[in-house]
């Protein structure tokens, strides 16, 4: 089995349209949540979200491309371009035969569905744009990435609601580890912030109308975000041989199912996934310094997640730093784990722990150090990233700081 490292990263999200800007915003504890701005927003009960502002697709794509790219594909392509550029990889020739892309998305081209249904139902037209299907399909984003970079190995999309991108990155990690690919692009993309997308979520009555406050006693629900993050996962030997800059190492992954409820999380299922990631990474619990929590800001998730962390880590849970960055970039649903991995890399690489902003009051059922409101400096050698989806599908990644000449060969 090989070892897998990250050699490139890219993102578009409400905090910034690149990695450096996102890291700076996370360090400063900025909030990307604000009033939503799109057609018919006044008919929504929930009118806040972490929307990507000042998005000008014309600066990235030509008119022919834009007729094929839903907003989630646009975000994915721009993030992928940044990641590939940073990695310095070129996939022309044989390299492209052993490289692919796995992306998570829960909704795919939701804006395209919304526009098309509006045309036929609201405007009563009997004709829609001819490219509706290739725009809205979930695999459109990885397909266009494969075409842009000439990736001719395995490429597909993964859809497990809020765990989609962790599942996608976990699968890509396993493929590189097993030698099925020398490099994989992996991450997630989501763009559900449109009238039909938010209206559907409203019905569940789990959305906040004012702010996302993970782990705070005053939390009252999740706030949706949008965007993408894409990484280059590469075989360690391959990366070393070409002298690539290594951001961190992915050392373990675990996925499982609660098999119990379509929306309520399970403490036991979450704990099994966390413990499984540690075991896969051969990581001792007391090595872990930081956990990027799923931390949605709902009543149910946050207390269940804290209980699961306490179950796995025992007394060491009190020494862990556990933050949810969703209060900054929102809940990106199928892309959320991908954007949150940036906070993990920031912790491992720079020792900066992104805070849980919006925190007002301790909740005795969330009695962990949740790094409230202000970023903290701490040397972190190992970290986890949690995702627990509707459907009871859990996916946890384990990562290590990359140190040249590390004892681990």
């Amino acid at each position, binding site marked *: 089995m090989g070892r897998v490292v990250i050699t490139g990263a890219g993102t578009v999200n409400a905090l910034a349209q690149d990695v450096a800007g996102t890291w700076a915003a996370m360090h400063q504890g900025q909030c990307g949540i604000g009033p939503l701005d799109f057609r018919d927003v006044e008919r929504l009960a929930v009118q806040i979200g972490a929307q990507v502002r000042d998005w000008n697709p014309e600066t990235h794509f030509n008119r022919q491309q834009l007729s094929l790219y839903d907003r989630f594909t646009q975000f994915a392509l721009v993030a992928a371009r940044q990641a590939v550029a940073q990695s310095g990889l070129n996939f022309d020739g044989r390299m492209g035969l052993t490289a692919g892309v796995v992306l998570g998305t829960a909704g795919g081209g939701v804006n395209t569905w919304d526009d098309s249904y509006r045309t036929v139902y609201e405007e009563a037209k009997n004709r829609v744009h001819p490219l509706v299907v290739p725009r809205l399909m979930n695999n459109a984003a990885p397909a266009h990435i494969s075409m842009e970079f000439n990736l001719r190995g395995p490429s597909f999309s993964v859809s497990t609601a809020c765990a989609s991108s962790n599942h996608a990155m976990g699968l890509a990690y396993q493929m590189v580890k097993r030698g099925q690919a020398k490099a994989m692009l992996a991450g997630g993309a989501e763009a559900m912030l449109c009238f039909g997308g938010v209206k559907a979520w409203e*019905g569940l009555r789990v959305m906040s109308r004012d702010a996302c406050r993970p782990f705070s006693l005053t939390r*009252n629900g999740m706030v949706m975000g949008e965007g993408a993050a894409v990484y280059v996962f590469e075989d360690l030997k391959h990366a070393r041989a070409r002298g690539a800059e290594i951001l961190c190492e992915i050392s373990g992954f675990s996925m499982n199912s609660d098999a119990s409820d379509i929306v309520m999380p399970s403490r036991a299922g979450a704990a099994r996934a966390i413990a499984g990631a540690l075991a896969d990474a051969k990581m001792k619990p007391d090595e872990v310094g930081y956990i990027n929590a799923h931390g949605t800001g*709902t009543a149910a998730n946050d207390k269940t997640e804290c209980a699961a962390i306490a179950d796995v880590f025992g007394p060491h849970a009190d020494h862990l730093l556990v933050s949810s960055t969703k209060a900054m970039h929102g809940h990106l649903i199928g892309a959320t784990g991908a954007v949150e991995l940036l906070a993990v890399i920031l912790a491992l690489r720079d020792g900066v722990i992104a805070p849980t902003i919006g925190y007002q009051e301790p909740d005795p059922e969330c009695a962990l150090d949740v790094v409230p409101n202000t970023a903290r400096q701490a040397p972190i050698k190992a970290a986890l990233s949690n995702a627990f989806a509707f459907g009871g599908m859990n996916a946890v990644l384990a990562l290590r700081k990359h140190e040249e000449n590390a004892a681990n060969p």
Partner: protein
Amino acid sequence: MADVTQRIREIIAEQALRQPDEIALDAGLGDLGIDSLGLVEAIFAIEETFNIAVPFNANEPGKSDFDFSSVGAIVRAVEGLIAARAA
């Protein structure tokens, strides 16, 4: 308002998989086996039936002005919202 009571009973009965006449006014939703998803479905049916908006956030159920403590309480709360709409 007998009609409101009867229609609330029908809505709750559908979620509880029972007959409307089996739904006692003093019964709590939990006693009837209605879980969190059943509750949001019942709220949706109430809103559609009576053309009202029921204030409810699943994250802070205790903070809702709408009293869900029993079937009878729901009837009174719905009557209140209907009266407020008419006013």
